[in-house]
């Protein structure tokens, strides 16, 4: 079981690098979608026995992270007639290098942290840290609103991975509350992205510079 989970986390970490290195927005969105599906099924693998509530949470996660939000982003992208991140604040090669260094640091750093025996063999903590770092690089380093949202999604995926450590400890009510909040959050972001597109006729956040001292 652990080896399957580790394999999937490895895939998620690979997708991080793909998102960092690619200039085409559709492939960034696709990496985020696949990553969302990969981490969405993970609760089913970690939970020893089948539980319909866990299955429900997993299904909702896959549906929202794998299909709903990526669709929302693709639609925003098409209506804005952009499919490329031009002149990011942090270039593609530097961000790829940052991501790779972050991944290595995450794997090394996770060893220094005390873990329960059942988690010591998994890549959950390094995977979570690497995704959080990747998310930050995208949030800071990209100029298009859609890329920044993708960064935020990867950041959230990382936190979700970390949350799997507590899957047996947190009550389902809290878990579903968190999931609901995150979903609504992304939905609100989607609406605002749409508003930006209408008001500025662009999704380039460099145009959002009126407000400053």
């Amino acid at each position, binding site marked *: 079981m652990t080896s399957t989970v580790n394999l999937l986390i490895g895939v998620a970490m690979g997708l991080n690098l793909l998102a960092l290195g690619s200039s085409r927005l559709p492939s960034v969105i696709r990496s985020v979608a696949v990553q969302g599906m990969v981490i969405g099924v993970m609760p089913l693998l970690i939970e020893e026995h089948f539980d319909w509530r866990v299955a429900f949470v997993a299904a909702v996660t896959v549906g929202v992270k794998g299909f709903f939000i990526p669709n929302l982003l693709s639609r925003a992208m098409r209506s804005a007639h952009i499919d490329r991140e031009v002149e990011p604040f942090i270039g593609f090669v530097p961000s790829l290098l940052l991501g790779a260094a972050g991944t290595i640091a995450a794997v090394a750093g996770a060893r220094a942290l005390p873990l329960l025996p059942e988690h010591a063999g998994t890549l959950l903590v390094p995977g979570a840290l690497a995704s959080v770092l990747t998310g930050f690089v995208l949030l800071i380093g990209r100029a298009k609103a859609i890329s920044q949202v993708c960064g*935020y999604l990867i950041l959230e995926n*990382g936190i979700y991975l970390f949350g799997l450590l507590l899957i047996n*400890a*947190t009550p389902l009510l809290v878990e579903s509350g*968190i999931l609901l*909040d995150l979903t609504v*959050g992304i939905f609100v972001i989607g609406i605002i992205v749409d508003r930006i597109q209408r008001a*500025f006729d662009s999704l380039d956040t460099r145009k*959002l510079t009126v*407000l400053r001292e």
Partner: protein
Amino acid sequence: MKALLLIAIPFAAALVAALWRSERTRPWLMPIAGLAHSVLVFWMLFDPPSFAPGAWLAFDPLARAVLPAASLLFLACAAYGVSYLRIRAERSNRVFVVLMLALLGLLSAGHQARHLGVLWIATEAVTLAAVPLLHFNRTARAIEATWKYLLVGGTGIALSLLGSFCLGYASLHGGGGGDLTFAALATQGAALSRPWVLIAWVLLLVGYGTKMGLAPMHTWKPDAYGEAPGIVGAMLAGGVTTVAFTAILRVRAVVAAAGDGGIADRTLLAIGLFSMLVAALFLLGTRDFKRMLAYSSVEHMGILTIGAALGGAGVWAALFHVWGNSLAKGALFLSAGNLRRAAGARTMDEVGGLAVLAPRSAAIFVTGMFVVTACPPFAPFFSELALVRTAFATGHGLAATLFLACLLFAFFGLTRLVFAIVDGRPRRASRVPGQSIPETAGVVLPPLLLLGLVLWLGLALPDVLREAWAAAVAQLYPGSPAP
């Protein structure tokens, strides 16, 4: 039971507002629900209900010490909102009213949350509920402000979720059975895994600090407060930031129980002083009177944080300051809304002579400025005095000196800008006198009432509040003598 009612009343009213058909009468649901909420919360202040220690949501001493202030602020904002939405009749107010009411319910939930996960859910929901309120004006500037608020606030709240997970894992690693209420975490105490507690503290401080608007995570604040309607700014600066502050207090108590209280206090002191310094410098530079209020809010969040770092007596002063700050910020934002409408602009380059254009609101605004710069006999003077005395008494002389210096700079910055817009002749960009909006009782009385309350708290602090704050301190510092 009553604790849940505090959350249920606003949500029920929000539901009614969503279904209410008349645009003209819908805003009245806000003051009605606000009044019911205030009556209930003050009843509970005087007659505190008992609660189970393991409850997820309860009107515990900490909630009792701060929630009534938020309720009063909402009541004033709601009364103002009725007149405000009548002025802005060209726009549907359904979403606005529903979300304002939901905001009150979520604030009540956030203040009363005694569970790590529930606290996070409530704070995140508050952040999201504020988004449509922020861009009520739908201008390009408002959208820009909302975007920045979402990205910075969303990242902050994501980090606090990560921090919550880390704290949960600290408990799990220490043999905890998965009970994530603050009471259970504190009982676990030194058994909590130390590295995880420290990581959790950093992440939660950054996460909830973003929500509070502590420097350097304050960057969303000037934009959001500058573009939001005054009533929304008042609720954000006086209500939402306070929820994040009580969150930090609750987390700090767990960290202290784990044996790292000293580290927590040092970081709080450093970040508090840094916030005050940044705010004071920006106050000296800004030319926009609504952004000025945002920097003033950053400054006061710094003051609260410093109070939290100084032990029991400091927290007592901070809770006192929460009341003064909430009510005074309410008065300032509401009157600033009037001034903004009277002047038609917001920077000192375009605005002047507001004492002529809107004499009543200008008088409230100037008085409010003296309140937040801690002039006697208003409440913030006494809370800040208590804080400075605590700082000297606990051997933080240098911090107290820096604190006073920042207050002085903030005073220079605020007076410079406020008198520039109030004095002189109305500018050409301003509207013609006589044709500006009339200062009706509906938009003048609520901020005036808030000012009156701050004055009353300064002149005659009721014993029940002293006792409520002391009880909250006793909850946060079990075993220490009451201040």
